[in-house]
């Protein structure tokens, strides 16, 4: 076990897989010689060569399209999209091709691509370096959507994703690359060094896809969340003193409904939290399922705390971000419901 931050854990996951499987190749903007703008691929080109860690033209659609073709020819490509905000030019290749090839060819062809991309705000990136577009991928059948919340899961889920024969969109919440962030930008940044999930095995291990994790047990209210908000939820729970159970869904699609429903059936109250815009966000799908599965046990309507239905503004990112205050207020007001 070593202490790693999320960048190191992701790099370690890539390293392990490149080492084990010569079919694993990477391609992306600035990922090769330079090692990536967030350094996730630092050193890997030196180690595995520029034919396996490939600098790419600035064409997200081309990166994904070519990666699909590589996957069809026996490779296991792990392209990087520099920011999730820039995945849209490749959206057609994801929706119409990556997600569909196995289906339309009845399994004769498939392309086991894992697209890594940093998402989320809180780094003063403005509206084009802060988005969390997981909901639009979750709606597309044929791909898996994953978002880890800590170094241990990041590496384990990444390895599972690369090993999976299904295509995966792997979102990396960049706000927590360097440390768990509890939603209070005024406080000094914490590092992963002192966090139990910053302890990461150096070798190969997996965290299963499609399995949520209860990161805090509680009896009064369930918070269902993922990514950066897992840490915000923990802080908000502490602050309110409410005995919250916190579930980190980890895989967005397919969703581990049972773990979620069991928790809410136990606590009777549910708050869903994510950073993306609320309207049509992934919280809607969770809420729709939970009200169905837990109808007779719900003591209050399910609440959603999310980014506002606006773009992510540069100056007001902390007003936009569903931080500790907003979450704590949501928890408190839900506890007032009889």
């Amino acid at each position, binding site marked *: 076990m070593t202490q790693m931050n999320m960048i190191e854990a992701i790099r370690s996951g890539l390293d392990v897989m490149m080492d084990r499987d010569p079919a694993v190749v990477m391609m992306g903007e600035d990922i090769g010689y330079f090692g990536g703008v967030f350094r996730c691929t630092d050193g890997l080109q030196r180690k595995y060569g520029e034919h396996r860690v490939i600098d790419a033209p600035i064409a997200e659609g*081309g990166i994904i399209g070519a990666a*699909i*073709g590589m996957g069809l*020819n*026996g490779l296991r490509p792990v392209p990087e999209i520099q920011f999730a905000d820039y995945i849209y030019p490749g959206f057609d290749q994801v929706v119409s091709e990556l997600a569909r090839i196995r*289906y*339309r060819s*009845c399994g004769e*062809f498939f392309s086991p691509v894992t697209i890594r991309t940093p998402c989320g705000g809180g780094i003063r990136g403005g509206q084009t370096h802060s988005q969390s577009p997981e909901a639009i991928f979750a709606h597309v059948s044929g791909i898996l959507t994953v978002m880890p919340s800590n170094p241990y899961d990041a590496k384990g889920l990444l390895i599972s994703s690369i090993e999976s024969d299904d295509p995966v969109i792997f979102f990396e919440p960049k706000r927590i690359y360097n440390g768990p962030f509890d939603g209070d930008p005024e406080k000094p940044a914490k590092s992963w060094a002192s966090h139990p999930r910053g302890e990461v095995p150096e070798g190969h291990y997996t965290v299963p896809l499609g399995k949520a994790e209860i990161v805090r047990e509680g009896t009064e209210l369930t918070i269902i969340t993922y990514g950066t908000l897992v840490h915000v939820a923990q802080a908000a729970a502490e602050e309110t003193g409410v005995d919250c159970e916190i579930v980190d869904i980890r895989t967005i699609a397919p969703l581990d409904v049972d773990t979620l429903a069991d928790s809410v059936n136990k606590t009777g109250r549910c708050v869903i939290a994510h950073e993306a815009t609320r309207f049509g966000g992934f919280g809607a799908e969770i809420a729709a399922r939970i009200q169905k599965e837990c109808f007779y046990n719900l003591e209050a309507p399910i609440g959603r705390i999310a980014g506002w239905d606006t773009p992510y503004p540069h100056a007001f990112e902390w007003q936009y971000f569903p931080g500790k205050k907003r979450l704590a207020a949501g928890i408190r007001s839900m506890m007032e419901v009889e």
Partner: protein
Amino acid sequence: MADKKSRLHIPHPTARPGDKPDFSYLDLSPAGAVDKPSIDSRTRDIEYLSSGLVRVLDDDHQATGPWAPDLDPGKLQIALRWMMLNRVFDKRMWQIQRQGRISFYMEALGEEAVSVAQGMALRPGDMCFPSYRNQALYMYRGMSLVDMMCQCLSNTRDMCKGRQLPIMYHSAKANMFSISGNLATQYPHAVGWAMASAIKGEDHIAAAWLGDGATAEADFHHAITFAAVYQAPVILNIVNNQWAISTFQGFAGGERRPFAARGLGLGIPGIRVDGNDFLAIYATTLWAADRARRGGGPTMIELVTYRGGAHSTSDDPSKYRPKDEWQDFPLGDPVERLKQHLILGGQWSEEQHEKLEEELTAEVTAAWKEAQQYGTMTEGPFLDPSTMFDDVYAEVPRHLQSQRRRMMEVEGVNGEGSES
């Protein structure tokens, strides 16, 4: 605003319904006129290939010039056979669609030489990323007519298990990729496949096809950019059949420079070839394949041809172009031209031709008879609808298992339809 005259340029085809067909816009070279360079040539030294028109068969059906390939007559007879089969097959499937027995069809009328000549010039280990007008590639690479018909019928033997529109074949065994409904998406796949081949140190190449209209799509640009940057061993074919549904090739930017020139700005050589000249297509494809195999990188090939029929069974071309336009197409009919070439050489005759046509018709009829035994749209056996939940993922996940159960219940008598 209304009082000023618009200065926007709007492309116009040379003829509309009622007009006399007019192909004066097509730059033609006589057969044999275009030099054949060495495959080591630098792109800038062979730019002439993108503006001339490589032709081998002259007006008298003689093979002529430096591109004339060394193909024995037996092979040419085989080629003629595949082209004729393509045509006979298409004609029958078109009728079958008109009878309401399949939902949709697209024919390759007038473009048969493209698939057959290119199919023959490639090696079995080369990977093809076809468009929906390359059915003869599937045939040539071994897909049976029955299998193709069963796909069009979405029946129990359908390789696509009823999931795809008719004509959207695939065959991993034949190294023929699955056809997508989305134009141009296969182009970057071919480049990525070729990159992988290069990474693995193999000498298989990839080839992709799309239409003149589809060159406007983003994926065309992605593909040529990646192909140029990494010098991927790939042949990028543009089948310029003059039309994209109702839109003539000027709307794809073909008014000023041939499509073959599209990659020049990235250093990709382009060859403009007579798309109805079997020999010219074969020769240029072989040249490009050699070049790719020896590390020379991508080549773009524009195949100048004409869409002899409607875009698809949903289309009515008499609405937007002269009815008999094809008859005036200066590059003629690819089947007729290869036939006459063989006759000229004494390797074929009208009688043999007629007989072969009858044979092929019988073959198609027999295939159709057999195909129907696996089910039609109205008569069983029918595909099991529960298979629609397979292959969304490598394994059927729990939520799809439960949706499958629900679907079966609803389709049954005591259905209940709430969510799973």
